[in-house]
């Protein structure tokens, strides 16, 4: 437990560092927000100066940073100019949307990648191994907006099976009372079966698009790790002792092969959560990736800083979770060793 506590304490300097880094990075960007936001053609130097003063950009850098820290201490991430909303409200609205999509996609990818990777490792060079390779290559090679548009074209435009690919709920549905911000649990908590189905239907295509992308690293990693483990001495020993094949593969080999898979899973999750801008765009999904990118392109720095802060916090959390999982899978390594 001491290890766990140490890890949690280590969060403090990490987040402080991220705060400073995100502040300095946005300051280093060459664009001048006051100029950018004085975007009316009648704006002259006086207009720009007035805006700069209003946004506090005329203060010395250290004062701006102190003001930012004071603001953070109050739990205020600032105001987004691009959306006109407080950054904290925006992130609170969008993070669950991204997380729900990512978790659904990751779940689907995992359900497909694990059996596929295991089967491919058990019979290297077989048809299923090739199928695994083709699917992985296609998943990585096809940009996700192409896959997304293709799925929309087939399932919405032609077959009419999928709902209109716009957002998390169809525009006429009433959103459930917000408990978690995740629509699937929230609709269930509200006892709204139809709402659950509607939300799930909206989720299928974007999740499938993302799952295809996440499939490749997971399936390849499972296959490689399984191959490695299956060739090791203790598996040979288990075979020699005449243990059942099923037991060898699932209990001995898979458990040992899971370590790198779980580590990859953490990495894939983090990158999918914040960087799936294209899928979010194509499906008009109100996620945080496109939010942060729009803010960056629009020289709207408060959301960028807020996004970096929240993502850093999440990343640390995910890493912690991955380490914990690894410790459970293999007690010799990881966090709980000295527990």
């Amino acid at each position, binding site marked *: 437990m001491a290890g766990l506590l140490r890890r949690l304490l280590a969060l403090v300097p990490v987040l402080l560092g991220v705060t400073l880094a995100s502040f300095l990075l946005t300051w280093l960007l060459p664009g001048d*927000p006051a100029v950018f936001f004085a975007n009316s*053609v009648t704006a002259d130097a*006086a207009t720009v100066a007035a805006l700069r003063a209003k946004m506090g950009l005329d203060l010395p850098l250290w004062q701006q940073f102190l003001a930012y820290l004071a603001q953070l201490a109050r739990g205020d991430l600032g105001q987004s100019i*691009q959306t006109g909303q407080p950054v904290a409200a925006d992130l609170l609205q969008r993070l669950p949307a991204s997380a729900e999509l990512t978790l659904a996609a990751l779940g689907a990818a995992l359900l497909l990648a694990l059996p596929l990777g295991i089967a491919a490792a058990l019979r290297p060079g077989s048809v299923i191994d090739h199928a695994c390779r083709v699917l992985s290559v296609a998943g990585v090679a096809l940009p996700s907006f192409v896959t997304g548009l293709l799925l929309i074209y087939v399932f919405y435009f032609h077959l009419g099976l999928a709902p209109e690919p*716009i957002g998390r709920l169809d525009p006429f*549905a009433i959103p459930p009372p917000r408990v978690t911000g995740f629509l699937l649990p929230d609709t269930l908590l509200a006892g709204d079966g139809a709402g659950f189905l509607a939300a799930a239907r909206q989720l299928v295509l974007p999740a499938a698009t993302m799952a295809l992308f996440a499939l490749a690293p997971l399936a390849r990693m499972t296959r490689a790790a399984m191959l490695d483990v299956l060739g090791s001495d203790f598996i040979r020993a288990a075979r020699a002792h005449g243990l059942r094949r099923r037991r060898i593969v699932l209990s001995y080999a898979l458990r040992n092969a899971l370590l790198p898979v779980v580590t990859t899973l953490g990495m894939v999750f983090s990158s999918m959560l914040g960087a799936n801008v294209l899928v979010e*765009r194509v499906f008009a999904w109100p996620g945080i990736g496109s939010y942060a990118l729009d803010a960056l392109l629009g020289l709207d720095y408060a959301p960028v800083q807020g996004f970096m802060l929240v993502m850093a916090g999440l990343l640390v959390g995910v890493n912690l979770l991955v380490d914990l999982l690894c410790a459970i899978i293999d007690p010799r390594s990881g966090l709980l060793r000295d527990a």
Partner: protein
Amino acid sequence: MMQRRDVAKLAAWMGLSGGLSALPLRRAQAQSRAESLRVLTEGAPNSFDPIGPGVNRYAIELHWNAYDRLLRFGTVERPDGTLSYDYFTLEGELAERWEVSEGGRAITLFLRPDARFHDGSPVTAEDVKWSLDRMVSLPIGRAQFATGSMTGTEQFTVLDARSIRITTPRPDRFTLPNLALAQPVIFNARIARAHATEADPWAAEWLRTNVAGGGAFRLDSHTPGQSLLLSRNDEWKSGPLPAFRRVLWQVVPSAQSRRISLERGDADLVQDLLPQDAVSMREEGKVKVVGVPMTGAFHFIGMNNALPPFDNVKVRQAIAYALPYRQMFEAALFSRGAPLFGGTAGEAEGTLFPQPLGYDTDPARARALLAEAGLPDGFETTFSFDLSLATVAEPVALLVQEALGKAGIRVTINKVPGGQLGTLLEKKAVPFFYESSAAYLAPADYFFRIFYHGPTRWNFGSYDNAEFKALVERTRFLPEGAEYDADVKRMIALAKQEVPIILLWQPALDTGMQKNVEGYKYLFHRMLDMRTLKRS
């Protein structure tokens, strides 16, 4: 927030009940569907305050329809039958009439007696005064109103409950048109004042996220960045009652997704079509595509006239002759728009500007001019464009690079990350670049005053010619007439001969809609007027 019943009603209206309303009657649905409009756009409004910092163009779409102004521009029919605003006629919106007196220095506006805000309270001259005062008291509003000689609150005087006088130091052609722009909306001052604070006397914080007006539509609900629901203000008196009772406006960032939704029949009207989509949708003919060249808007190639070699007029002309205009127009815009190349060279063709500059592709002449400029072997330069304009700017940049390369000018392309070109232009640090801009008021002298004059970044060429400068300043308060026309023609001739920036084209504003949606009207701000639309 919306009530469950409202949603069900709306869903029934849209003919998309999906089990929400128990027994949807087909005929009732058909009737009410005719009264609802579903609009998809690329972006969402970031403010409901027309003069907040960084207010985006989607904000205009909201406040244009949710607020009234004192005046509005008239309507003309374009040759293809599309409606368009007419800068040269003004009509009353909240003002039923106006009088100009004191040799043009005083304008008295008389409000409609029956005009009411959304909360039912009458629109009074006090509300108008507060709203106009607010314009001149906040930086972005003041900069705009200054173009119409309105700079101080003392210029707006309440005469009685329904009339207000605007006085200007000199008669100014631009005072009245300024009142018809998108920005000077009339607020319900009683409500707005209640939300003002000492630090924020003009309620900027509150009006950013709230509507306090009396326009043709009310804002019923708003999910930031995702959707807005508007309903018709049945008590609206400032014009013919809009045909649509409800407008559901949703944000769909991907152009392909918007197009698919329109073609599948789920959306009624889709804004921000890409030029290539406009071309192919028009060919397929499943939906209606209306394309109007954006008056006042222009794409251009800028040259910093203060930096060598662009300080030499022969170099600028050489580049203007070297550009492959037609290829650029086809590659970048699929020829959707009005060309500003070709046309009469060296002299004005009428008094409207932008107009074609009189340059066309002529490589031999370009080389000759370069030799005359003392640069027979060309020179090296960088060509910058903002990545947010990449779909149009990238093909342009490549063609510029290729064509100028043949004339000996070695061009390095510099892609500036989104939003940062403005900062570089403000510092006058870019020699050669691609940009676009637009002016809301149509007269040529206004255009020149912004884009060919002064120290701001909007003088994209950093053009500084003593004669031109004198003409710009002289025409500022010159009334329309022969003298004004002669001065404008001289300025146009100079803009053509000295070519401080090379105008390329006015892009088309392409909007897709179902065939039964009619009454689309093109406006100077290029956003949707929901008030004139109807379903046939």
